[in-house]
């Protein structure tokens, strides 16, 4: 049972009811997971019955290359912000973790990211995975924006609504530039920084990766100079 939908259908307000309400019902009936995956320029929505035993949300993030799973044991704040540091390419919502079920007036993307945000608040409910194999998609950044909006609706913190927040968060994960009002995000940001730094001590396994990143970004800069 698979639906392939376009960018417009994924993000359009009010589409959730018409396009996936039936899938959600099936998901509950079959005690399965509702899965959304960005594939080849489309979003695939499906019911996954192959892992009926699982009860955890799984989100797969593209672009977090520094470590296989830097967030598995992180505090809740760090987990909540992790999807903003990478690009969401897959969300799997087991029926038992679907708490926001309202579809009326919602977009499909909002349905998924609201449930994801709620799941990430509970370490026992969600796993973060990373991948480097996906192609970059316009869906991903839009999903990130929707995820940020979901966070804003759940947590009152003015920092979330500052201009270019996700860019700042990227920088903040290396050295502190954001001051959060909420304790959960403030400690989460600190955890993210500690994890990044811990992964990058000289002599560690990532020195070579760092050199590769240095070489890659330098090559990009030289291209600007040559243009």
């Amino acid at each position: 049972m698979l639906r392939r939908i376009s960018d417009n259908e994924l993000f359009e307000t009010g589409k959730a009811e018409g396009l996936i309400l039936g899938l959600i019902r099936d998901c509950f009936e079959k005690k399965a997971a509702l899965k959304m995956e960005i594939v080849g320029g489309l979003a695939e929505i499906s019911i996954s019955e192959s892992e009926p035993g699982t009860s955890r949300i799984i989100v797969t993030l593209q672009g977090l290359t520094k470590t296989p799973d830097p967030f598995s044991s992180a505090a809740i704040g760090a987990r909540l912000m992790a999807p903003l540091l990478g690009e969401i390419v897959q969300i799997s919502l087991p029926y038992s973790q679907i708490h926001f079920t309202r579809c009326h007036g919602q977009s499909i993307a909002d349905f998924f990211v609201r449930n994801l945000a709620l799941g990430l608040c509970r370490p026992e409910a969600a796993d973060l995975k990373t991948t480097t194999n996906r192609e970059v998609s316009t869906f991903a950044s839009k999903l990130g924006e929707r995820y940020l909006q979901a966070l804003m609706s759940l947590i009152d913190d003015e920092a979330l609504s500052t201009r270019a927040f996700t860019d700042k968060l990227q920088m903040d994960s290396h050295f502190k530039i954001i001051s959060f009002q909420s304790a959960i995000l403030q400690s989460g940001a600190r955890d993210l920084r500690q994890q990044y730094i811990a992964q990058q001590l000289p002599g560690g396994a990532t020195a070579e990766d760092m050199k590769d990143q240095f070489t890659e970004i330098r090559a990009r800069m030289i291209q600007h100079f040559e243009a």
Partner: protein
Amino acid sequence: MTAPFFSIITVSYKDAWAFTKTARSVFRQTCDDKEYLIIDGNSEDGTKALTHFWKENGLVDRSIHEPDIGVYDAMNKGIAMATGRYICFMNAGDIFSEDDTLDRVKALLSENDLDGCMGWGQLGDQIWASWKTGPAFKLASLGFCHQALFVRRERLAANLFDARKHKTDSDTLQLGRLFEQGANIRIVPEVWAMRGGEPGISANLERTRISITDTLMSEYGIEKSIAEQVIAFRRHCECVPLIAHLLSTADRPFREHLALLVLDTLFQRPSRSMEQGDVDQLYSAAFRALGEHAASDVDRLIMAQSKRDSLLRDMADARASLHKDIKIFGEQEDQRLAKLNLPKPDEDLKSPDYVVALTSFPARLPTLHFVIHSLFEQTLPPKAIYLTLGRDEVPQRHWLPRALLEFEEKGLHINFVDKTCHQYDKYLHLTELNSEQPYVIVDDDVIYRPHALEILLTAHGEHPKSIIGNRCHLMAIESDGRIGPYKDWKREQTCPLPSHALMPTGAGGVLYPPGFFSDPILSDVDLIMANAPYADDIWLKTCALAKNIPAYATRLSQGSEWYHRYTPTMRAGTLMASNVELGLNDMQFTRCMTWLDAEYPNWHRLLTGELKEAV
């Protein structure tokens, strides 16, 4: 009285026209919690008059106009004069990147107990991307842009700039020392300042070499030859073996600071010609030299350069998009001009010589040839069009598009002046051309209709002593003859006869009768700066009132008949927002009326007289 949050300080010397940009940028800031101070080296170029204009309009709080021994001496005077909690030096020609920059910086500084913060700077397609805090600034600028630096006043007062005359690197030296003393200054990876196009003091390479050599020898105790080779590496990526050797053998802190300089240099333009082997060797040596901080330092550099890359890509995308728009625009213009099939000019009107003049700036140059083409493709084409450009914005002829230069064969005269006077370049340097012939001023972003110039000249034939405009506004005239607020004016109006109440605007093309510009008041820069530094239209109208010369609106002055279309670069550098929305036009008119009151006390009778006639 509570001290303001910011002291914004502009240091200027003989740079009045560049200062106009900076002051307007400060004026546009949404943050009011600031004082604005001007430190001028006693310039005789209109700087004092411009300062007076902004004092009268409530922007400038205090100023000094006296000789100094250099820019850092002037900046130290600014520190002494400041009362704000944080100081930013926004020198003549530089501007803030956004209107809410100060508000955003204030929020950051208010929420955190910081000694300061530093954003990034931009000049054209270059971005100054600071990434590392610490005393290494004594050795190199590391992406530092002083216009984007905000530092607690007490910190600066205790660490004044080295004001010796030969010094050109006192800002980075001061910053390094602030960090050495433990100042908590945070980097924010956002562009906060746009640097002026004019070369700063550090553009003098030899003077800078001497200054930095002096700093390196005194701060690190290294020999002159070593210091010079470090500079050679920084500038040209030369002396790689020596630099690699120093990274292994030099003492701390020089070794660590040099490592940061090396990493930063590998992201600068001169490094593009380096062999990959040399890059790898230097990277490894720098990484080792940084010791336990290496990973976090390199990571910060990668993050900062990724952001810089992203900004540069956005700019490249915008350029590509504009290029595409220009291409389409060009094709449409070709089709329009092919269909024109202009009749031969009327022999009676063909004979009078007249001058067409305009000015431009880099952002509009890619489309300027379309404007020039529309001015030559006229029913009564001009024999000559004069384009004036400032070398401080367009240093070389070869910066100009070929498509523009090709019009030189048809009568385009390109007139370079040392420093731009912005919109006043349309006439300030060419007044003698108007001594015996009409002088038409046009804009650089408008495609003119094919009969626009003929209509101006025909009206000139009927009203030879009037100013003729293809686009005129009817000013709001109050009962005492004074001019009302700009918002109350009626846009694009005609009158059956010439009228003092009509205000021609340059965009439509304005014809000035022979001899109009001969009066020295038109070109008096002190008067211009004191009264209408941002609107030549307003100053020219003021002078017309002083000289009792009315304006006549042609039939094109209605329903947007006066132009065919704008070019795709129209939005670049437009003055519309600050001149109209923020009330700068009204400020200038108020100043001009005050000047008229003093110099020509009866001027408003011209307008009351017309009112009575109308009644």
